């Protein structure tokens, strides 16, 4: 298999395990490329990519832009803070205006679940979902699984605990779909108010005790508290959250095994994750960031192939 089964990357739900493995194999090559002295390849020369971000982003936007530039694509950036969206323009109008300038691919982040799916029915360009509200963040899940594979050799058979604000997390959903497709066991852990009531129906284990989750897993993916997406109160205070759901070094020292610590960033240090863990030898957080560029290069390269 040398081609993806889809024209867009809207979510992990919509792609196959073969697609994921193809992305990983391609990313292996690109990881080697970005560690060369000359980090650029001409694969997407003459392809124009628009990064359209209707929500704030630092690392995802930077990572996509870097991936695009390493592939020699022409890149334009657009964010809602300096756009006509604030003047009341619709999503389709905004994107169509950009596409009229002959853009081939769109990387979009949006606060509405399903916004890229809606867009895919209305425009012709390839779409990469860079996060849609509380739905999916497929490239994050791909780079997370890629990082686990790199660290532990394989994803199949591994136990991964996703700990934190699952309710407001697009990373959690995409991770669940991706890890399950690759044969891993998944547990979610957090306060009951931050776990969707029906999350167990997705075939994941549900736990509310962080120590038990850490004891169970091979990999702990700690998610940030999404204060910006919490429209109402879900727990009493950040102090209480840090005390009962935060992960610190002492907790890891009490385990009878070594586990891998991940975090999609940005970290609320001292809340969901203490610095003594984030910066420890257990952590592969910065490897995730590096792998993010390689995985996004692979996704863009492969999608360009099905244009």
């Amino acid at each position: 298999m040398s081609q993806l089964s889809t024209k867009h990357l809207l979510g992990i739900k919509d792609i196959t395990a073969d697609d994921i493995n193809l992305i990983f194999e391609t990313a292996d090559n690109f990881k080697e490329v970005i560690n060369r002295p000359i980090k650029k390849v001409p694969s997407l020369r003459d392809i124009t990519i628009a990064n359209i971000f209707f929500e704030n982003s630092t690392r995802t936007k930077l990572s996509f832009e870097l991936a695009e530039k390493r592939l020699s694509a022409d890149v334009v950036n657009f964010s809602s803070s300096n756009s006509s969206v604030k003047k009341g323009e619709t999503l389709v109008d905004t994107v169509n205006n950009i596409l009229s300038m002959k853009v081939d691919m769109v990387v979009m982040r949006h606060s509405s679940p399903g916004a890229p799916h809606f867009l895919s029915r209305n425009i012709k360009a390839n779409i990469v979902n860079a996060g849609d509200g509380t739905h999916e963040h497929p490239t994050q899940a791909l780079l997370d699984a890629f990082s686990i594979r790199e660290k532990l050799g394989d994803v199949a058979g591994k136990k991964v605990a996703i700990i934190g604000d699952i309710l407001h997390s697009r990373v959690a959903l995409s991770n669940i779909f991706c890890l399950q497709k690759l044969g891993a066991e998944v547990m979610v852990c957090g306060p009951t108010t931050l776990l969707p009531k029906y999350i167990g129906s997705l075939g994941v284990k549900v736990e509310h005790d962080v120590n038990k989750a850490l004891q169970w897993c091979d990999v702990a993916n700690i998610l940030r508290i999404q204060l910006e997406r919490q429209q109402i109160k879900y727990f009493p205070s950040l102090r209480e959250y840090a005390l009962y759901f935060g992960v610190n070094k002492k907790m890891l020292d009490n385990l009878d095994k070594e586990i891998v610590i991940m975090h999609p960033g940005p970290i609320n240090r001292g809340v969901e994750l203490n610095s003594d863990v984030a910066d420890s030898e257990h952590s592969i957080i910065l490897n995730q960031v590096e792998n993010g560029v390689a995985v996004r290069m692979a996704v863009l390269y492969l999608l360009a192939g099905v244009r």
Partner: protein
Amino acid sequence: MTILLKSLSFIDSKGIHKPDDYIFDGGSFVKAAPTIPKQIDQTLDCTGLFGSAGWVDLRCMACEPGEEYKESLDSLGALLQASGFSKAVLMPNTHPAIQNKNDIQFLKSKTSGWFTEAVIQASITKDNKGEDFTDILDLNSHGAFVFGDGLNPLSNPDRLAKVLQYLQKFDGILFDHSYEPLLALFGQMHEGLVSTKIGMKGIPGLAEEIAVKKNLDILRYTGGRLHFQTISTKGAVEAIRLAKQEGLSVTCDTSIYHLLFSDEDLQTFDSNFKVNPPFRDHENILALIEGLQDGTIDALVSNHQPQDIDAKHMEFDLAQSGTIGLQTFLPAMAKLSDQLGWQLLISKITDGPRRVLGEDLSSISSLTIFDPSEAWHYNHKSNLSLSSNHPWMNSTLQGKVKFVINRDKLNKL
């Protein structure tokens, strides 16, 4: 006008009768045999057609005044007539709301020429906000006897209790779309496995169940007449079933589309499936069907809520709720006819809603005659609404209304 209906298969509470000839004169409906009156003004060949008493929709919306571009009173009148409805209750969620005698007079004058009889539901609180009461007795003196805030629930228990007491002066009926707004806050769809999979904030069935149970407790305390609109949950059906057994003066309806669509239809993020109450899961749909069959649910409604393209063609969570539902009502029944049977379906848009409105069922003053199997294409050309927010747009449907007769008016379609 005396009309001879030849070879009509008539449906009533006794079942589907064998094809026969009938005479209808606007006030009585009788078999033509053995003697046909000499004076026949019209003869309609009804071979292969079904007929019933005229259909009644307890919940539909005109957007006039305020948003005439979505559905004007003129377009709604034409739509109701073509869809087979001889009577319809109009929701008060216009801009301004239907909340004073001038509003009632405006609607009366605009609907006086309609083929369909309009029952004007008046707002029970100002601007349908659930706080200050409208001038209820004054509105009643101008003809309103059905009250309610339409799309909005009357969730304040004190307001609901006072209203149920106050309406008793003239046997007024409170129509309420009951749900607890704080439990539905920011919700976009039914809360369940599908909402979890697509990361969408859910509206738990609990939001409706808790409000229905609370309102039944209040009704038990106050007395009065309460009609729940568009119930969608198993818990609501069970609570109303028990309340009816207890003898409370309660009735309810559900939208026909809540029997046909489920939360699984939302997986593509198509905003045409965004409605309030949301399309639920199969367990709730089965409970609604059971409720229709055992008489707990009295009526089926269209819940016709027009939205223009600019209110729907956007991100799912930003889109407005609602589907249009009149012209597709018969095709919706046709899709359900194998499962539920025509007799039951027809009873829920004839005797059922007429009982809710307190009407005498001994006479028939209107008829709807239809072909249950005629296929037609539902598209922007055949659509009579000013809006087109329906999941079946651009598809072939089965079931077409052929004649509607309301007293002395005949409409051939």
